[in-house]
């Protein structure tokens, strides 16, 4: 099992009450799974991704990645895990505006994990997302959809075991969306695990063998037949 969530609870204070963003979620994900979590805005799906990725700590419950509990690790170990095992795709542009496209993509490979040929790999991934000619451009010179594609390319650069994607096709036109989903399928077939949260129910239909969940008021439920 590559991801396991046990009795995961996360609350946020809203005015004078505590709102359950994630409410007692239990989830097991095997290597190579493609999970689609459907839900409306505010249903808690982004918070669930943050908990799985170790970006925020749960109020209670546990998250295991490859059998290691996230919040039992040191900051260094957790950072290393994020860097080597997880690729993040956020629902908004998460590029550093003062870095070029190429520099943004290579950012996860800093600190001695910069293998030879990484620039070629980056160019290859950029070509796969249709932006081969934008390597030297800056985010401000790209459209919202192009920025999204750059952050998708960045999430694949360190060949992670898991991709956590939040509305990955939100800003994309139909054609590009198809290409990106094709790209996801290709990586998934090679063994990369995907957890994709979206409000787009069509996305689940396009991914063969995808495990589909829905999330409502923090509660996760399976839609698998």
């Amino acid at each position, binding site marked *: 099992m590559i991801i396991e969530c046990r009795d995961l609870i996360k609350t946020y204070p809203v005015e004078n009450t505590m709102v359950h963003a994630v409410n007692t979620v239990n989830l097991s994900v095997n290597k190579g799974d493609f999970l689609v979590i459907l839900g409306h805005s505010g249903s808690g799906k*982004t*918070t669930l991704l*943050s908990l799985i*990725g170790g*970006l*925020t*700590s749960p109020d209670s419950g546990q998250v295991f990645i490859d059998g290691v509990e996230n919040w039992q690790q040191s*900051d*260094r170990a957790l*950072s*290393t895990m*994020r*860097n*080597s095992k997880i690729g*993040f795709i*956020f*629902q*908004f542009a*998460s*590029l*550093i*505006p*003062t*870095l070029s496209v190429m*520099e943004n993509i290579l*950012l*996860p490979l*800093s*600190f*001695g994990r*910069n293998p030879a040929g990484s620039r070629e790999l980056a160019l290859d991934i950029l070509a796969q997302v249709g932006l081969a000619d934008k390597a030297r451009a800056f985010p401000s010179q790209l459209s919202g959809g192009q920025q999204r594609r750059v952050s998708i390319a*960045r999430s694949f650069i360190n060949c992670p075991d898991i991709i956590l994607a*939040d509305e990955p096709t939100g800003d994309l036109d139909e054609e590009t969306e198809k290409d990106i989903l094709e790209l996801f399928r290709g990586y998934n077939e090679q063994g990369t695990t995907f957890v994709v949260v979206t409000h787009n129910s069509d996305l689940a239909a396009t991914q063969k063998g995808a495990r589909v969940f829905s999330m409502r008021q923090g509660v996760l439920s399976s839609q698998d037949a």
Partner: protein
Amino acid sequence: MALKNIEKQLNILDYALSSLWRRRAKSFSILLVFAAIIFLLASFQMVTQSLSDKAKQVLAYTPEITLQKMSAGRQEAIPLAYREQLAGIFGIRRVVPRIWGYYFDEVRLANYTVMGMELENMPEGARLDASLANGKMPGPEARGWVFVGHSIKEALNLDERYTFSLFRPDLTLKAFTVSGEFSRDTDILTNDLIVMNLADARDLYGIPAGLVTDFCVYVANPKEIDTIAKKISTALPSVRVLTRPQIQKTYQVVFGWRSGFGSICLLAALAAFVILAWDKASGLSPEERREIAILKVLGWETSDILATRFWESLIVSGLACILGMTAAYIHVVYFAASLFRPVLMGWSVLRPDLHLLPRMAAGDILLILAFTVIPYLAATVIPAWRSATVPADSALGG
């Protein structure tokens, strides 16, 4: 492992450098302001040290004890007859009378310092020739001959002529001939000085025979200065006794006070800069917070982010220190600390055109670093640490 760590640090340094370059307008502005503050502080420190050193060096040839008669808290002429009472004090090598006063030049609106001495009776009299840039000291019989400081020579336009006249109190003129000029090395004391025979000074000021303005007392054993000063005070209660260490201390205090005053003003500017840096850094812009969050998401540790900010701040403050201190050195050596001369050189219209050799002890450098680099590092690294410890998803605003 160590090699990997070095490689990681080099990568962080590389990122810090590129980060500074990316924000080059902001980085350059901070660098300039920072360098300007360090320049001002270091200049003050250097010039104060130089002036103190210079004063100490020049005062080494002044009398060990100076006596002045006081009446109603004010100085008045001292009778030559007091010498007989001083003769009975064991340890006094020599007592030399002196007439010392100011002469106000109404044309140039400048004060000259006039000193009439019996040079032939001064123990160090023969050595005074060494303090002259040219000419020689007039002998005891050479009436009307003077030697002058650099500014006097310039003010009276003595390049082309050797004679000039000063007014006596009864407005008759007394003529003088220049026999020599003091070396520029002694400018701090001799710049506005006219030295002449005791009789000429008496004539110039109209001081009656039997009176002088003060006595220069030389002692046999310099270690006994304080003891002999006490004996003189007891023997002549109406006399003010000034020892050379006291005069040296006065100069140090005067320069120290002026420097301290200036330093306080500059420290206020520095404090304003640190507050500004703190405000700027603690109020990290949403873009900066987002950048930190993105780096965390991508696997950077909190310590990596702090290291990046640390290197950025260290590069800015280090460069500012080098720039500021180099500029201060150039300012003091090549421009004679022209920015601070009005503050540090006092009220005289004829300010010495000093050739200062800056001196800075390691302690002074550390003090400046402590007051500049460390607060700046704290003002930039601490807010980054605060931002880096906040869960990344909240900064990303998802």
